[in-house]
């Protein structure tokens, strides 16, 4: 096993994959949240502003999912094969949700008719909700583990994905994204729409804190293998602590009108949550509930050492490039939304 800075390549790739997924959740998270709360905005002008707030960036944000899929396929092909064939049905629901989200944003503005726009508003918002819920459902099932055979293939049926824990994670994910999306939109809007969004943001923050608390209690009581790691290594309590502080900060920052800091806080919340999940499942990528020996880990699921090296090289070259042009695009569209003739 080759290593770099004392950490072996497989663990590095696990960190890269985790970072890409966190990046996706933070970036597309606000798009999806903005979509999920879309119908809370009543006026045509408000909806257009909300759509144009994410307009220039949502597509680039979705690319993080593509990179994440590629990263998993390349680094941990066994996990890629097992996870996506296991989640066959929910994953296609998720993907079809992504299709409709994209085309709804694109098509809505192409006709001025009221019915046309209302239909697309509904499809847009509904697909964002479905995407958030199905993502959360799959995350919940991955965190909890699945029954796997010796060949690492899933042996259960797709109906068992709808278990209490995963449903709670699904709702928590939706709440989290809605909070995140509302804060993002507040950052991009002015005047009355801004006021409305700060109120929504505070309400969604409360919604999220409630769902998160319930899920946490449930986890401690019924999914012990998930909390064992944090309990046994107290230093990891730093992540839940960071998260709590970040959440507590949000209403305070919004009251002061410091929406940029509020956005950073909710981004930190998402990252801390995912880091907690990663810490809890590591070194597994997919825990086998029937027989822990069948679990898919960063070591038994990985590509060859040579490929891991190639991948880390690609990541080392690619990441700064992506960072440069992503920040360039965000910088170009910084500040409040201004509608013009090229807008949605």
């Amino acid at each position, binding site marked *: 096993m080759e290593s770099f800075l004392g950490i072996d390549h497989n663990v590095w790739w696990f960190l890269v994959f985790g970072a890409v997924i966190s990046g996706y959740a933070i970036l597309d998270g606000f798009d999806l949240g903005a979509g999920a709360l879309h119908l809370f905005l009543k006026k045509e002008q408000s909806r257009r502003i909300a759509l144009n707030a994410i307009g220039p960036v949502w597509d680039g944000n979705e690319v993080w999912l593509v990179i994440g*899929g590629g990263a998993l396929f390349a680094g941990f092909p*066994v996990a890629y094969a097992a996870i*996506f064939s296991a989640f066959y*049905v929910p994953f296609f629901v998720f993907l079809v949700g992504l299709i409709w989200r994209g*085309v709804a944003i694109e098509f809505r503005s192409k006709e001025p008719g009221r019915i046309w726009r209302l239909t697309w508003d509904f499809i847009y918002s509904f697909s964002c909700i479905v995407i958030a819920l199905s993502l959360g459902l799959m995350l919940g099932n991955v965190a909890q583990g699945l029954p796997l055979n010796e060949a690492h293939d899933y042996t259960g049926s797709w109906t068992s994905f709808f278990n209490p824990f995963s449903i709670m994670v699904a709702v928590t994910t939706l709440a989290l994204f809605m909070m995140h999306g509302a804060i993002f939109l507040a950052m991009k809007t002015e005047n009355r729409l801004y006021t409305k969004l700060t109120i929504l943001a505070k309400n969604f923050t409360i919604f999220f804190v409630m769902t998160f608390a319930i899920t946490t209690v449930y986890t401690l009581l019924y999914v012990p293998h998930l909390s064992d790691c944090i309990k046994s290594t107290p230093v990891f309590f730093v992540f839940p602590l960071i998260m709590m502080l970040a959440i507590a900060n949000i209403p305070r920052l919004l009251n002061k009108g410091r929406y940029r800091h509020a956005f950073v806080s909710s981004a930190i919340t998402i990252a801390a949550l995912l880091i907690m999940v990663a810490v809890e499942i590591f070194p597994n990528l997919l825990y086998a509930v029937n027989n822990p020996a069948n679990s898919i880990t960063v070591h038994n699921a990985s590509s*060859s050492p040579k490929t891991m090296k190639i*991948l880390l090289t690609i990541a080392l070259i690619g990441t700064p490039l992506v960072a440069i042009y992503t920040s360039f695009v965000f910088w170009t569209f910084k500040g409040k939304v201004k509608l013009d003739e090229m807008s949605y």
Partner: protein
Amino acid sequence: MDVEILSRVQFAFTIAFHYIYPPLSIGLGLILVIMEGMYLRTGNKLYERMTRFWIRIFALIFGIGVATGIIMEFEFGTNWATYSRYVGDIFGSALAAEGIFAFALESGFLGILLFGWNRVGPKVHFFSTVMVFFGSLFSAVWIVVANSWQQTPAGYHIVGEGMNARAEITDFWAMVFNPSSVDRLLHVWIGAFLAGAFLVMSVNAYYIIKKKHLEIARPSFKIALLVATFFSLAQLFVGHRSAEGVAKYQPAKLAAMEGHYDSSAAADMFLLGWVNDKTQTTSGIKIPGGLSFLLHQDFKAPVQGLNAIAPADRPGQVNAVFQFYHIMVAIGMLMIGLTLFACLQWKRGKLFEMRWLMLVFAWAVLLPQIANQAGWFAAEMGRQPWVVYGLLRTSDALSATVKAEQVVFSLILFLLVYTTLLALFLYLLNKKIKHGPVDAGYPEPIDEGSKRDNPILSH
């Protein structure tokens, strides 16, 4: 029906539908770079209107391309889990490179291309257009590399046995530059440029027939015609090189393409024909020994036929491979003839006076689309029964955990969603075309001053 057939049908359907859009994005990307480049150089507002019109069409096409493309990335895992494990070490790095080098570039700058007209200066905007175009070119690179590796594997070794066997990289660059990568990449790029150019010609031919937006339609048509003529001719050479590669590395596929069974005989080249796989005969209009001549410059040289390969190891649908291949070649020839004829008429100053020719061009948008699809069907069906040529059979590549009813569910889902998408796409495209290259802030009359010293604008 069994999972294998269903999964193959689903993959074919989703990839074929997806493949309507990326070639158009790549081709339109090139045309946008040319148009905006002309605007930057001449400062002529006409080019600006042209560019902005095509940016709107580009946005629509790109949007559906991305939406349907994400499906493809995950479909390997959902339906072809064994394949994913087998090729992950190789395919995965190409896919990861595609995501990070190509898609991120493309989608990042797309925001500026679509919405940045008033936010950034003309040079930065042009730079973004170029980056989006490069991004789309790069994404073709990695996916074609991955597919070419499945056709002509190189730079790997096999580790493990039976269901646990998998290919591992031994030489990254040998994998990237496997024997068919470069030829097939050029073939795909040119097919994409033709798709874009014929779309631009089609829309402008329509305006010319309707006598609308003539001041923009004529120069736009000429730009696209130049692109189409150049690449139709280039495709002849690149396509030929690709066929030579197939002859060398995938003889079973080439034999199926020409319906050639007998290894001891010279191979004919058919213009039209029909393969009867039962009697192992191919009948039709042919150049006797034509394929032999093309490959060995000798009409009598024998060419390996399908009979030299065990029935279990050669394509099952020989006639389909034959027909798809011939449709592609015939359309390629037709595009050369059509574009050269149009250039001739341009030279004679009669290009836009021939209404029938404009009508032909209005419909010719379908030609590269059909050729691209047919070419891929020939390439992929000709590779059967292998998913990785000579190494992994398609029937062994499936997901063990996925049941037929699940695939039926997703297949029906895609049929419904994609049919709706296609209808909406055509409706909106039609609407945008009818609306024409008219900007709110830019009045119809054109700037007469700069027309004189510009060959494309003077008509």
